[in-house]
């Protein structure tokens, strides 16, 4: 899909210090019935965010006006469970461009990279530092620098580098997706398929 290029993002962050946040929490299955990609942000974390009568749950972080920004910071094993790309769409549609965690589930990480959300994996220690900084001052700015593969807590200067393969990095920097690449090697794919038994 087409998405905005990602270079450097400086933003406040929204803390969600829970482990094993699964994609059923990010976007519950009953909201997967759309046949278009837009609008999922309204139901991001639906059942943590709203009561059954649709009133906001005051103690959930997205309903706390103190915490805003384009970076979501979650606990270990973020995005486990279902392969629903709707979870990544919901994160993007809500306005996040980056998710930070100490560990991501595979499919969610992959889906994020395909839709323009940058997953940034940091050490458990640095994750704690981010939570501490954001709780101490919700206006704390984080800087995510994709070209240099660094994430920095601007107030403290604390910094870590993060991994991303050079192919995906190039895609994110340019707003390209895999289909652009695959279309260009279609002949090679067709020759490969011709040699298969089944």
């Amino acid at each position, binding site marked *: 899909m087409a998405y905005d290029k990602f270079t450097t993002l400086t933003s406040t962050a929204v803390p969600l210090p829970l482990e094993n946040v699964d994609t059923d929490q990010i976007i519950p299955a*009953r909201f997967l*019935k759309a*046949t278009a990609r837009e609008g999922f942000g309204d139901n991001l974390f639906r059942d943590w965010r709203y009561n059954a009568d649709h009133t906001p749950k005051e103690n959930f972080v997205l309903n706390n006006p103190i915490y805003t920004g384009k970076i979501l910071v979650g606990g270990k*094993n973020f995005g486990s469970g279902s392969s629903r*790309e709707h979870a990544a769409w919901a994160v993007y549609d809500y306005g996040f461009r980056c998710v930070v965690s100490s560990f991501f*589930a595979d499919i969610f990480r992959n889906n994020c990279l*395909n839709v323009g959300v940058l997953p940034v994996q940091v050490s458990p220690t640095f994750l704690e530092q981010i939570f501490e900084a954001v709780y101490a001052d919700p206006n704390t700015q984080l800087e995510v620098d994709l070209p240099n593969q660094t994430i920095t807590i601007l107030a403290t200067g604390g910094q870590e580098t993060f991994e991303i393969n050079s192919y995906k990095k190039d895609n994110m920097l340019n707003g390209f997706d895999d*289909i652009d690449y695959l279309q260009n090697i279609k002949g090679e794919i067709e020759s490969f398929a011709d040699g*298969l038994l089944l």
Partner: protein
Amino acid sequence: MGKTLFDKVWDSHVVRKIEGGPDVFFIDRHFIHEVTSPVAFLGLKSRGLKVLYPERTFATADHNTPTINQHLPVEDPLSANQLKALEDNSKEYGISHWGLGHHKNGIVHVVGPENGITFPGATIVCGDSHTSTHGAFGAIAFGIGTSEVEMVLSTQCIMQPKPKKMRINVNGQLGKGVTPKDVALFIISKLTTSGATGYFVEYAGDVFENMTMEGRMTVCNLSIEMGARGGMIAPDETTFAYLKDKPLSLKGADWDKAVAHWKTLKTDADATFDKELTFSASEIEPMITYGTNPGMGIGISKNIPDANKVEGGIATYKKSLEYMGYDENDVMIGKKIDYVFLGSCTNGRIEDFRAFASIVKGRKKADHVTAWLVPGSHIVEDKIKEEGLLDILTESGFVLRQPGCSACLAMNDDKVPAGKYAVSTSNRNFEGRQGPGSRTLLASPLVAAAAAVTGVVTDPRELL
């Protein structure tokens, strides 16, 4: 150096390697369903692309379909819209479509194998994480996102870095009442839901060698719940016997040629894994989950663990128990339950219904329990009737519904109400998975049946 089963299948499907990036990976078989495909087709249309190999993609409707009155129009307009989109897109692009009402309709991971679409050594994807099911045949099978569905439709390839390799060995003899589901829930409880993230798993050892294909499918299905992208088991005579003469299996000389190749699909003696774990079958008893992820499982006779004794954050653990309405050190046996769900791509096959029937036979459903028995496909439904299982179930006060994913993810009307407890043979016990506020206890069909007739969590070994 020797190659693993996984290496052999993976390496033979790499179209191109990208320096510092993923492999361009060819997909033999692609399944689509109504929920994760519409946006992929929108993408194709907006780019003006065609489906490159429509004969390699198979469509079935399952995720949001009703499990009663399937002959009537689908009431929910959003679900109906998705079903129509699947039908229209399949027709427009020449894809085989087994929609609602079709005699081959059912859950994608049930109909693929039972029709012989799945085969050893294949690469198989679907916009559904339980695609790992097909690994039971010695295939590399895993779930993908909708962007990747679009890639497969348009180019038959996706771009994936090769995962690391893990082998999980389970040796010995499984005890009475211990099923493939228990083996899987046991392994997940040991590894946690992220223990195999980044890996592709091969299951080995005599427990898996002695398992039926349906049992192997249950195990491979749950690979994703330990974080693995997929799991696989080397194909053997059990595999070939299952696939032979399935409607879409190869025939005659082509079959013989394929079997000769499939026999080479096993891990070489000198191949190595990035990680290897071994368990003994005798450690495993019937399992049940008590929390809000599939790693939170225990032997049914055990107590809920103390927060200080579990891996991971105490706050997350306590939040989970609070959601379930349970306390640390609670005994699971005797906990009252309200719903029982038999079905899903994990446990919706004929052997699961046989197991369930073996317990409820001659007993009655507990009055306060609502039971949803949902076959994985029409083929399973037909067998339930042919084998006389329906009579047993009816006699015991149960009603058989029509095929679909149903209460596994509760996209249709089969929703467990807030606060209620469901013993489910499905695969996820996440908060609200079976309906907002629902509480899920994952277990085998035997444990589900024991709960259905007693109304409380019960050790099935006492009823066998």
